[in-house]
């Protein structure tokens, strides 16, 4: 008899102590935003063109040439690198003794606080591409990409030719 009462009491306590049961469903929503860099809002902007003035007597105008490209964006820290594809503004015409077929220049590319600088004279033979320093933007950045080119007067006369050319390539690479 006492056992029955005790059992009933325990059951009663258990039943009255039950809390309301809430149902919960977690929906974990994820999205990956990939890293990217764009220049002028796109990934493959058209090339810009600049002509280095050279006088009739072979004097190079050494005035700074500047380009500003709006809306350069990297949504993560990125590397800025300026690279001369030819190592200078070079002619295919071979240089005769006492002449040169290269117009060297200094250049820079700046995005945010990151600047990559190049001086093509550091490789006088201009046998291939020359890259400037790798500059880290330190974070996501959007703004103007500023590119400067300052031609240098060669120490010897320039060979006559119409094909002096180089490509200064500015590369933004998301880290």
């Amino acid at each position, binding site marked *: 008899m006492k056992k029955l009462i005790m059992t009933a009491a325990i059951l009663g306590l258990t039943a009255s102590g039950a809390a309301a049961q809430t*149902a*919960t469903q977690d929906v974990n*929503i994820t999205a990956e935003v990939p890293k990217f860099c764009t220049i002028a809002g796109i990934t493959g902007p058209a090339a810009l063109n600049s002509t280095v003035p050279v006088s009739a007597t072979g004097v190079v105008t050494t005035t700074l040439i500047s380009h500003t490209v709006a809306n350069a964006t990297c949504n993560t820290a990125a590397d800025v690198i300026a690279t001369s594809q030819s190592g200078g503004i070079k002619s295919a015409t071979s240089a005769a003794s006492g002449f040169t077929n290269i117009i060297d220049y200094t250049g820079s590319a700046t995005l945010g606080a990151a600047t990559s600088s190049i001086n093509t004279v550091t490789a006088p033979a201009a046998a291939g591409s020359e890259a400037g320093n790798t500059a880290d933007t330190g974070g996501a950045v959007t703004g103007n990409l500023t590119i400067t080119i300052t031609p240098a007067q060669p120490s010897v006369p320039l060979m006559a030719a119409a094909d002096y050319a180089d490509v200064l390539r500015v590369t933004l690479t998301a880290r």
Partner: protein
Amino acid sequence: MTSRTIFAALVLAALPAASALATDQNINLTAEVPKFCKFDAVPTFGSLGNVSVGSASTAASVINVTTATSATGIMNAASFNFTIPATCNFPSQVTFLSVNGGLKASSPEPIASGTFLSRIDYTASLFGWNGAAPFSLATNGTANASASSAGTAPHTGNLQGLVVFAVNNSAPLAAGDYADILRISLTPQ
């Protein structure tokens, strides 16, 4: 002889009747059925717009945005709906809660200069549960923001909702892995 008869009668009269020896034991049986709500089956996700279902269970599911942004970091549209079979044995309240207040990156990208978005907002809407008034939860960065509505009776059936991502093209999104937890609760009142 007469005295013997009288004695026997007295003895019989003094004995209690056999029925007077019985006694009753009543056992009062009681039970309390607690209020409960439960999800009866794994949720189903439909109308998948630019999302995929990573996994689904009665406790937690995973929805992945397939292509969160364009090549230039501008947010893409995405949406999905969900149906969860559920039972509540008492009038219940359905609640949507956003743990992060939108999808946020666990390790936010530092911003060196310029403007970047760092959150993907969405609106979660209830459109079906036992007469509960439809409601929407629009995330805005506030952690643990919630919205709720009450059902009117015990119910078993489908809880249905819709999630639509808010396309904000005012700036590119900073790179990163974005996440939020949309917590769907049914609580008996």
